[in-house]
């Protein structure tokens, strides 16, 4: 993607994906996907469901063979060296996939044993996570809450001390507090030197990654630091508030220099095509326009675009150029 934060290719990169393609019938699940992840990086794949994130994970964890392109994990080829890769990666699929009829401890012990290790040997790495669920170690995994299931799944993916961790939408269906705790855990794992690739459909989680790749329709739209991705937004952006949102949206869409209007939380995000004009001047012009149309309570302020703004904008252009 040519941004300055992308490190140059090196054999030390724990993950290199080069022009990967995969098709299922009529659906192009992956289309010329290339990414490179640095050691001890927390890398996010962000995009809506059906964007190709899970397909990419399944190829990288050697469950699926790509149609074209190549990928190396820890310097090993995902097609040729699948057995070496399997011994060294940790994978947490999107769906909860532990044995519901086995207890917490039995699940963890089982996954440790199939990798030829034990809970005790893996304890130092899983300790911060496992200690939270250890009081329930005799409870069956099926009877755990969503947040605890997810911690158990992470423990199971980590117990054999993998060199790289793949987490496919780990926070889907988990409450807000557990999600925050989970990301804190990922940060402490990353601090210990583990490379982590995580996918999420939530834009707010993208900010917690070192770098993110935006994915849609099997394509990478952009790869960069979250802050830098916000800066890719092509137009001046404004937050607009007012009580009559329907009238606001209609008026803003019909405004002479309107680029886009999206509802965004409690306000509207309006972008303007006049990139070379002073934002405060645009803001006052827009405010006057709204007041003139009878929306006296309308407030307009210039704001910094976030990752979600960029994503909405990129998705709009991507879907207009990619035949769906």
């Amino acid at each position, binding site marked *: 993607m040519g941004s300055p934060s992308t490190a140059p290719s090196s054999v030390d990169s724990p993950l290199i994906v080069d022009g990967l393609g995969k098709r299922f019938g009529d659906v192009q699940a992956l289309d010329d996907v290339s990414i490179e992840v640095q050691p001890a990086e927390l890398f996010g794949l962000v995009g809506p469901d059906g964007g190709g994130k899970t397909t990419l994970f399944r190829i990288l964890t050697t469950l699926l063979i790509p149609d074209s392109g190549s990928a190396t994990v820890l310097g090993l080829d995902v097609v040729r060296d699948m057995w070496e890769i399997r011994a060294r990666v940790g994978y947490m*699929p999107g769906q909860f996939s532990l044995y519901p009829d086995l207890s917490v401890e039995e699940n963890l012990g089982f996954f440790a044993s*199939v990798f*030829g290790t034990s809970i005790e040997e893996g304890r130092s790495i899983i300790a911060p996570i496992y200690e939270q669920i250890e009081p329930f170690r005799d409870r069956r995994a099926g009877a755990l809450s969503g947040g605890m299931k997810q911690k158990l799944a992470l423990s*199971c993916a980590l117990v054999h001390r993998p060199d790289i961790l793949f987490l496919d939408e780990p926070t889907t269906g988990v409450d807000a507090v557990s999600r925050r705790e989970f990301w804190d855990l990922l940060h402490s794992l990353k601090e210990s030197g583990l490379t982590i690739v995580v996918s999420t459909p939530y834009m707010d989680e993208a900010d917690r990654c070192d770098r993110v790749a935006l994915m849609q329709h099997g394509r990478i739209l952009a790869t960069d630091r979250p802050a830098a991705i916000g800066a890719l937004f092509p137009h001046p952006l404004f937050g607009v508030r007012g009580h009559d949102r329907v009238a606001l949206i209609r008026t803003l869409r019909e405004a002479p220099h309107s680029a886009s209007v999206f509802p965004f939380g409690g306000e509207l995000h309006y972008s303007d095509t006049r990139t070379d004009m002073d934002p405060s001047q645009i803001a006052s012009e827009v405010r006057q326009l709204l007041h003139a149309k009878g929306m006296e309570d309308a407030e307009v302020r210039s704001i910094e675009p976030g990752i979600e703004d960029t994503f909405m904008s990129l998705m709009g252009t991507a879907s207009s150029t990619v035949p769906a």
Partner: protein
Amino acid sequence: MRTLRFLIHKEFLQIFRDRMLLGMLFIMPLAQLLLLANAATFEVRSARMYVVDQDGSPASRGVVDRLTASGRFINSASSASIALANEAMLGGATDVILVVPRHFERDLVRDQHAPVQFIVNAEDGGAAGVMQSYASRILAGYAAELSIKELPGNMMITGAPDVPVAGRATIDVRRRGWYNPDLDYADYMVPGILVIVVTVVGTLLTAMNIVREKEAGTLDQLNVTPIKRSTFIAAKLIPLWSLALLDFALGLLLAYFVLGVPIRGSLLVVFLGGAIYLVGALGIGLWISSISETQQQAMFVSFSILMTYLLMSGLFTPLRAMPEWAQWLAEANPLAHFTNLMRAVLLKGAGLRDLMHQFVMLTVIGLVVLTLAVRQYSKRTE
């Protein structure tokens, strides 16, 4: 090897935690064995007989008495009208009609043979044949009795032209069933039923097993581990195989002590056959599990395969009665070989040497099926 042990440990943990599964494994097959052993018989008792006695003589009453005294037939209705009897047959109120024509006794004394008519409802062909053969045996016996008691000479009771009651031929065919002299249906059916119930339970449980892990997503998790294909299949096979063998042993105990089936041959040969047979039977279950995406698919495939197995096993219809191509097909049916083997050992006391063909076929089928299952279970998709 160490991984295999852990995998097997996990399978046993899951099996013994699932009450439903345990019930399916141990209670259901044994209950079925007891139930079917008593139900699956070709014996007919108390068939309803409509008597049309137009003669009303001591001899005609003797015919009715002999038939009912056997316990095979009960005199459910009588009248002098064949039309009424036919109506009863149409309405399902009677199974057979016995017509003793006028002058039966007179003809018997004068001509030394006289016809009776025995009409059997042949909707159920099997039962009709059985009833007819009972009747001819009983009547032949009565004829012999009469000739000794009252009328020296070779007097016979013969059937009406369309329904022969006893042959006119003077050849005396003496039946003697070897190895099951009383033609006890339980002895004949129980070994086959035991094989069936163990096969059904074993095949279904294994067929559900891998596909359940697919549905739960645990298979993906397992696949991203260094577990080898053959280790995985072995870990699935060994626990269920040993439980099915245990099931088989319990069933055999039940057959011997409760159902009174003899064990004339070597138990070692029976179990050796069972061990080899179950590898193939459960291997088919694992193969089904590998090709299926959902438990529902696995269920359907299992049922259609099991159905074919059962109907072509020779238990319900003799293999020799089937067309040649079907007999060739039955060579690939492990159930047929093992049922043969079981009967031969239990009833006949056959040994390993007599059963080389069955042992070779069971081994070949087992190896082929197992290879298929391992190959089908691929740890990744194209």
